[in-house]
């Protein structure tokens, strides 16, 4: 596997312009003849499909949901960053670039991040023109807030539903192209494999989730916009259907998988209530602006929170990080909560929770002010837990939320398989080892609206594209493999349900490849996963048939891929002998328990190559150069 990042030469601020000029264009008359498949219709997929269709390409889109509008981008709450500097507070493209590289703990590719910061301003223009109702000031201009501990206000937002509004904008742009006949959309259709012909991605195999029909679609290029893999933990803030299948199937066909161990654990989620829990709910990070986090000083505290006197409370973030206090970055806040709970100070029935207390803020500003800021979040909390956060502190606990790792892509967003591109959370490119708040929406839309429309043209203009049909031998073969896999899943007839095995995998991954990882635990996990995989293939039960809508079968196929993926994730975590961003290895910490990066040995993206079933994946490295952002140890004391 050869890793050529294809970073354009020249000064960082000019790379993208220069590259756009140097890339080949597709003749306008020929665009119609090029077909493109887009898998996934979240922010990245919908924006890419709409933009490519506007350019004239013939686009086919697929999503597993019943409508393109339901992709999980819709759940993003906080906002979207852009270097508009509307607040005149010192923001710039360069500062957004710098913050993102630093926030990613120096494990991202500088050139990509710079481009991201550059196009961020266009995203806001585009979305406003689509009618996205961003928050505004009384003067009618766009409002901004500071988010996730940045020192400038560069986050644009639409109440707590920014992801929804941006996705609906992209979905509507897509709908417009569907009605123009430029996009053919397929809902309730899941991608099962990618078809390679002469080494190039030329199509996908899909299963129609309603009829069970498995078939091939050919195209000149394939875009995977299929999101992240947080559901490897079973419980996460991802939607129930989010899965790694598309990315993993591409990986098995030769696409390198980069940094799978870089996962983000969000500190402010509603804690797990019991065994039946299927899903975790995020409470916006903005709550930490006014809430104070604490646990009792006494382990096994039985008193209700208001009865615990001030002196017997441990405001551990304020204690450990006096200068940032409750506003430390996500990874730091999450680990600190885990540390307290592991030590026995956690609250709630499970002992895995900490208090997020608004009493001081309510005393200071009044209940109305708090309700104006967080009313909908407080309401949501009460809906789920049945407790009133105005009266008693919220209980929160970290939860898997976003995955920085993903398919390795070059500067053009192409994976190691020619013709196969990965956009949005599905790729690894821009967030390094930790993503800043309000940057996921920015990256998804940057890739879809402003990067791929250019870079895909270059790929199509320079590729050798002989005509192929669905009857090509490779299509038939790939399709047949997918069919056999479905049949195999249906024929096991074991005892354990898919969810039961998924829960076990999730617990294992959460405990050993979660917020903090140890060499020993990882080794144990790497040994355990193949056993669990075997258990799955021997003892899972998938009722029903493959010829109709079968949700058990859908879940089983996804879990089968998670069971393979989990192993490389654990191996990646073991291989990376340092602590950086969301990856914390207990062996690599300072005496105060802070993460210790090892820039001499690990300033690279780890890219894994599939070597076959039950074969160890091979590790490749893309060395990361930092010309502009010189790595420093993050300190929030």
């Amino acid at each position: 596997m050869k890793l050529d990042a294809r970073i354009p030469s020249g000064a960082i601020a000019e790379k993208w312009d220069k590259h756009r000029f140097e890339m080949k264009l597709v003749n306008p008359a020929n665009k119609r003849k090029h077909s493109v498949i887009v898998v996934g219709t979240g922010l990245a997929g919908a924006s890419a499909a709409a933009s490519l269709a506007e350019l004239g390409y013939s686009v086919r889109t697929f999503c597993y949901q019943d409508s393109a509008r339901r992709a999980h981008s819709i759940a993003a709450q906080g906002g979207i960053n852009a270097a508009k500097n509307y607040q005149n507070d010192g923001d710039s493209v360069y500062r957004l670039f710098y913050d993102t590289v630093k926030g990613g703990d120096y494990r991202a590719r500088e050139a990509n991040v710079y481009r991201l910061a550059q196009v961020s301003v266009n995203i806001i223009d585009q979305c406003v023109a689509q009618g996205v109702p961003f928050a505004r000031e009384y003067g009618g201009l766009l409002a901004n807030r500071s988010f996730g501990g940045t020192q400038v206000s560069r986050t644009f937002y639409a109440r707590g539903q920014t992801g929804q509004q941006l996705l609906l904008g992209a979905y509507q742009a897509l709908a417009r192209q569907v009605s123009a006949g430029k996009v053919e959309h397929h809902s309730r259709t899941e991608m099962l494999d990618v078809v390679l012909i002469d080494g190039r991605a030329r199509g996908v195999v899909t299963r129609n989730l309603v009829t069970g029909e498995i078939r091939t679609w050919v195209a000149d290029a394939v875009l995977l916009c299929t999101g992240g893999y947080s559901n490897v933990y079973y419980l996460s803030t991802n939607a129930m259907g989010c899965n790694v299948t598309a990315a993993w199937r591409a990986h098995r066909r030769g696409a390198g998988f980069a940094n799978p161990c870089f996962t983000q654990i969000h500190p402010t989620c509603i804690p797990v209530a019991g065994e039946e829990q299927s899903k975790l709910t995020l409470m916006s990070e903005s709550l930490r602006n006014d809430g104070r986090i604490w646990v009792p000083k006494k382990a096994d505290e039985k008193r209700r929170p208001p009865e615990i006197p001030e002196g017997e409370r441990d405001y551990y973030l304020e204690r450990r990080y006096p200068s940032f206090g409750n506003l430390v970055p996500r990874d730091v806040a999450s680990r600190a909560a885990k540390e307290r709970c592991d030590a026995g100070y956690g609250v709630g029935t499970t002992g895995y929770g900490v208090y997020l207390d608004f009493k001081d803020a309510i005393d200071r500003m009044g209940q109305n002010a708090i309700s104006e800021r967080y009313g909908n979040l407080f309401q949501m909390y009460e809906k789920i837990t049945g407790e009133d956060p105005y009266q008693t502190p919220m209980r929160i606990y970290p939860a898997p939320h976003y995955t920085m790792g993903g398919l390795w892509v070059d500067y053009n967003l192409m994976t190691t398989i020619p013709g196969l591109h990965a956009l949005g959370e599905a790729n690894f490119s821009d967030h390094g080892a930790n993503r800043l708040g309000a940057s996921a929406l920015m990256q998804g839309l940057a890739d879809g609206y402003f990067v791929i429309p250019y870079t895909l043209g270059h790929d199509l203009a320079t590729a050798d594209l002989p005509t192929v049909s669905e009857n090509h031998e490779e299509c038939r073969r790939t399709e047949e493999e997918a069919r056999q896999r479905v049949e195999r899943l249906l024929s096991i007839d074991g005892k354990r349900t898919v969810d039961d095995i998924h829960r076990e995998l999730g617990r294992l991954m959460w405990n050993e490849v979660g917020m903090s990882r140890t060499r020993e635990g990882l080794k144990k996990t790497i040994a355990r996963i193949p056993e669990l995989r075997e258990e799955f293939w021997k003892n899972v039960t998938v009722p029903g048939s493959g010829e109709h809508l079968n949700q058990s079968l859908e879940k089983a196929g996804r879990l089968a891929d998670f069971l393979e993926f989990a192993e490389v994730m654990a191996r990646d975590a073991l291989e990376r002998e340092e602590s950086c961003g969301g990856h914390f290895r207990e062996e690599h910490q300072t005496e105060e328990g802070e993460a210790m990066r090892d820039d001499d040995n690990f300033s690279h993206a780890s890219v894994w190559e599939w070597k076959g079933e039950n074969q160890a994946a091979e590790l490749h490295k893309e060395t990361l150069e930092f010309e502009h952002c010189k790595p420093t140890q993050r300190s929030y004391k």
Partner: protein
Amino acid sequence: MRFTLKVWRQNGPGDSGRFVEYAAEDISSDSSFLEMLDRVNESLEAEGEEPIVFDHDCREGICGACSMMIDGYAHGPERGTTACQLHMRHFKDGQTITLEPWRVRPFPVVRDLMVDRSAFDRIIESGGYVSVNTGSAPEANLIPIPKDIADDAFDSATCIGCGACAASCPNGSAMLFVSAKVHHLNSLPQGEPESLKRTAEMVMRMDEEGFGNCTNHGECEVACPKEISMRNISRMNRDFVRSSLLARVFGSNGNS
């Protein structure tokens, strides 16, 4: 807690369907309604039976996938709440709960409690967008929009497209869904140039899909998990009359 579920089971659009009773035993009051169903389903799966099919995805009330009539209420008895955000503590121990799919002709049953809502997508495709190509947008702050107008547009834009409005309407009308999108876009300066054409085409598409007509029962507004107001409907009526009558009488063709 324990519950008796009367669940509508239907193998596909051609099947006639029937109610089947299930017992949900040992349910925590903290679990959500869908988690309670998960549990019933897992016990069915463990016995090799096919689980109850229902749409769901984000489980935090925003994707709009979940959709079922719970004991006669779209999304259940709690106001402003999707089925996935409904918790069992709101039910009585031992209660019998009836579950049915959305019943509107343009939403044919796919299986059990799952329906096909692609009619909503087709309505959006008919005009629920602003015609702006990527790259051609002007600077975002060029057009100031008064805060109250932006906030009002947002209120309409929060629609999650779940279909509860049409499902709960005694007439099977989708006016709340359509008007929310029409008003969101028509009220903003970016959407104004196409407003009359948009209204006319979306209403036409809505009719072609076979939804019923609004007779102002107001069930949609109460069932809407995002509490979208029926005001949108009257605003759309006005825009529609403007687009199809006045514009033509006075010789203009709307703004198409």
